[in-house]
């Protein structure tokens, strides 16, 4: 088995950022997806949307400029770019549900080979359900990209034939970015677009719970 280095959190975020074009309206989910913002090209107009009524999010403010009324969906302090706007939750989810968001980047617990995603609830007896905007983003955005580790901490595949965990949205994921590979969800199944150097297709398949195809 050959040597390879998994992509770091930053490297994955950078890899996603490469696939975002000028003029796109993008919602970055809470957690790891938020990091994608740090790697977007500064010379291109890319519009970041936040569920809580903000379009045109800028970088995090320094401490002196934090404003409790200006936060993102993850409740982190943000800034607004010139040309940004505020609106209410009805309008914000009209943007999402109405198909106006070009791309949403989400974290996930599991993705199935047909694009089903589970990212809202582990469903263990002690867990309290909480969904936020996850289900709206999954069904509403024109494209859904997922960032997640290729396997769980126990080594179990997170890309599976059918979901084991409660579903967030049916057949909505278009692409999966893991620490090992970038995989498209297509009508012909899961297609590997790229892999980390030194990893063989067979080794990647072995860590994946559904059948992969080379590009």
């Amino acid at each position, binding site marked *: 088995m050959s040597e390879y280095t998994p992509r770091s959190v930053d490297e994955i975020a950078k890899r996603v950022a490469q696939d975002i074009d000028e*003029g796109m309206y993008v919602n970055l989910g809470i957690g790891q997806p938020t990091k994608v913002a740090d790697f977007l090209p500064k010379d*291109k107009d890319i519009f970041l949307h936040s569920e809580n009524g903000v379009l045109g999010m800028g970088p995090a403010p320094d401490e002196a400029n934090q404003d409790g009324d200006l936060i993102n969906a993850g409740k982190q302090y943000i800034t*607004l770019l010139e*040309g*940004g*706007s*505020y609106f209410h939750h009805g309008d914000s989810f009209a*943007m999402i549900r*109405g198909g*106006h968001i070009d791309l949403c980047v989400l974290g996930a617990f599991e993705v199935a080979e047909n694009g089903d995603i589970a990212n809202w609830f582990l469903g263990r007896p002690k867990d309290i359900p909480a969904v936020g905007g996850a289900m709206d983003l999954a069904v509403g955005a024109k494209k859904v990209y997922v960032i997640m580790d290729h396997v769980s901490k126990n080594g179990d595949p997170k890309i599976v034939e059918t979901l084991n965990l409660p579903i967030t949205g049916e057949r909505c994921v278009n692409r999966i970015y893991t620490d090992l590979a970038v995989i498209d969800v297509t009508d012909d199944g899961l297609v590997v677009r790229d892999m980390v150097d030194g990893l063989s297709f067979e080794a990647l398949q072995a860590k994946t719970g559904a059948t992969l195809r080379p590009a």
Partner: protein
Amino acid sequence: MLNKVTATALEAMRHVKDGDTVLIGGFGLAGQPAELIDALIERNAKELTIVSNNAGNGETGLALLLKSGCVRKIICSFPRQHDSYIFDALYRAGEIELEVVPQGTLAARIQAGGSGLGAVYTPTGYGTLLTEGKETRTIDGVDYVLEYPIKADVALIKAYKGDRWGNLTYRKAARNFGPIMAAASKHTIAQVSEVVSLGEIDPEHVVTPGIFVHEVVCIEGEAA
């Protein structure tokens, strides 16, 4: 740098195709995007379905569009006005199809289209000629009619100020259908009286965020 400002109204019409559904803003003449409509006439796409509150006045704007022969069908709430003689003649001659929709249902269907709802139950028009044959349901003792979304290929609206990201403000009652039509269309073209720098519109005062707008055309000398 993204710039949604398009030089001419005619250029903005390049995406309009035969058979398109076109939302046109305005209530009477207030908010009617007259210059965009003129350009649409020049574009000469055929078999259009037009959605607008009225069916045109006199021999301008929407009325001229109907006269041009480009329109197969109009969906509106109030076609008959004292000076809607162009529409009246076409209708009586059977040369245009008419779907009359209560004004609030027109708004609700356009909003459903823009916000991704599959259908809505509205109480308006229940038991009337305008909802004959439509599905109904009684919910909590109130009778409702099931109404389906209106989505369009193109929207033509008249705003007041716009910037290169497509953010818009409106002027007084000319706002009317503009914001909801912008959201319900694949390609929204806004004519404005003034193109302003990014950030000049206070983010609290943006009425239509740029996400709903694809092209901004400045019509000179049109300011209030």
